[in-house]
């Protein structure tokens, strides 16, 4: 690709943000195609290692999103996740990881438009920041290069 296209990986919960992104679709709201969504049952399931791995996998930006506080399908998974993120952010920031590239957001199943806005703004922000070249890449892993369209 001639122009730099940021690679964004999103970790979302099944019940709110994934459903919200479905609503974006049914509402036909267009947004940047740079995002790849990994669906998990709950934000509580999102291991912080996944975020590191995403960057090690060449992501330029990461989105982590789930239900608003109080709306968790599992009562409290997002509350637990929020605490974990709080510490994780502090640590990564301390060692100098560019936290502008990690966006945490609450997107409910009703917020189709918010999902589109979120993706667009993250793509725009990360585009401005440029490729995250300083972050070390995972070598020798089973990751595959994208297959070109024939």
């Amino acid at each position, binding site marked *: 690709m001639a122009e730099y296209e940021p690679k964004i990986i999103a970790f979302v919960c099944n019940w709110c943000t994934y459903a919200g992104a479905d609503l974006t679709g049914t509402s036909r709201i267009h947004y940047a195609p740079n995002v790849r969504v990994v669906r998990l049952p709950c934000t509580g399931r999102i291991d912080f290692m996944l975020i590191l791995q995403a960057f*090690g996998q060449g992501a330029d930006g990461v989105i982590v999103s789930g239900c608003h506080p109080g709306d968790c399908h599992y009562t409290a998974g997002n509350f637990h996740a929020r605490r974990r*993120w709080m*510490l994780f952010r*502090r*640590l990564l920031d*301390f060692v100098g990881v560019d936290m502008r590239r990690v966006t945490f957001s609450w997107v409910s199943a009703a917020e189709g438009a918010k999902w589109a806005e979120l993706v667009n703004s993250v793509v725009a922000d990360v585009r401005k920041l440029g490729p995250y070249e300083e972050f070390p890449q995972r070598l020798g892993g089973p990751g595959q290069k994208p297959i070109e369209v024939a």
Partner: protein
Amino acid sequence: MELLRDKAKSLLKSGAVQVVIGYAAGSATDRFRPHFARSADEADRLVFGDGCRQNLAVYLLKPEVRAMGKAAVVGGPTTLRTLLQYAVENQVSDGSAVALALEDGRVEELTSFAAVEEYLAQRPHGLSEEDRAELEQHAGRSREDRWAYWSGELARCIRCYACRAACPLCYCEQCITENNQPQWVPVASDAFGNLEWNVVRAMHLAGRCVNCGSCAAACPQNIRIDLLNQVLAQEAMTQFGAEAGYSVRKEYALSVFKPDDKETFIR
């Protein structure tokens, strides 16, 4: 020193404990090694001095030590905090270990968690002034500088896992690094793997670390990995009021929550 030896001997003699985990003189005058005293003679080799910084609580969970019987462990506040954190984590039960708290040459025998809690309640909590200043100094630098520093430091990591071995709270029988389904942390000592290892180590100790410094002391590359633990300890304290190892009833900061925990960073 004599007080310590006497105490150890009387404990061993009365059968209150079968082993006293302490320090003995090491290869050089300022070096000490862990010493497991099981008899009066062995107790006579117990020493204590400025260089005795290793957190000996780490041995309490070792099967070999457990096999010796009930143990008394020698140490300062961080060793005691380890003991309480072990209690929180169901690793040591009340009354199954004795702590010999050392302070200004005095020895205090603490036989129950309650006694340890009370002892610690009267000692200062939180990070020391110097630790805090050091953290602030690091945090005060620009992100680019911080990254330059830490990527440089972590590049020197040889992944020997001495930090893990020294840490009393890294007691998993199968560490995440040894799990290859999936391969959480690449085995090779490369930049990514080193970053992952050091981040995961700090995160797994967040809300649990008692700030004994054994990890950094053990690091053959002299990387200040203890700072990673401290920054999280400080954050857990300011955000959640969580401090590990002061109470057996204290909940682990990451397995509880408050509905109104701060979330200004979430869009």
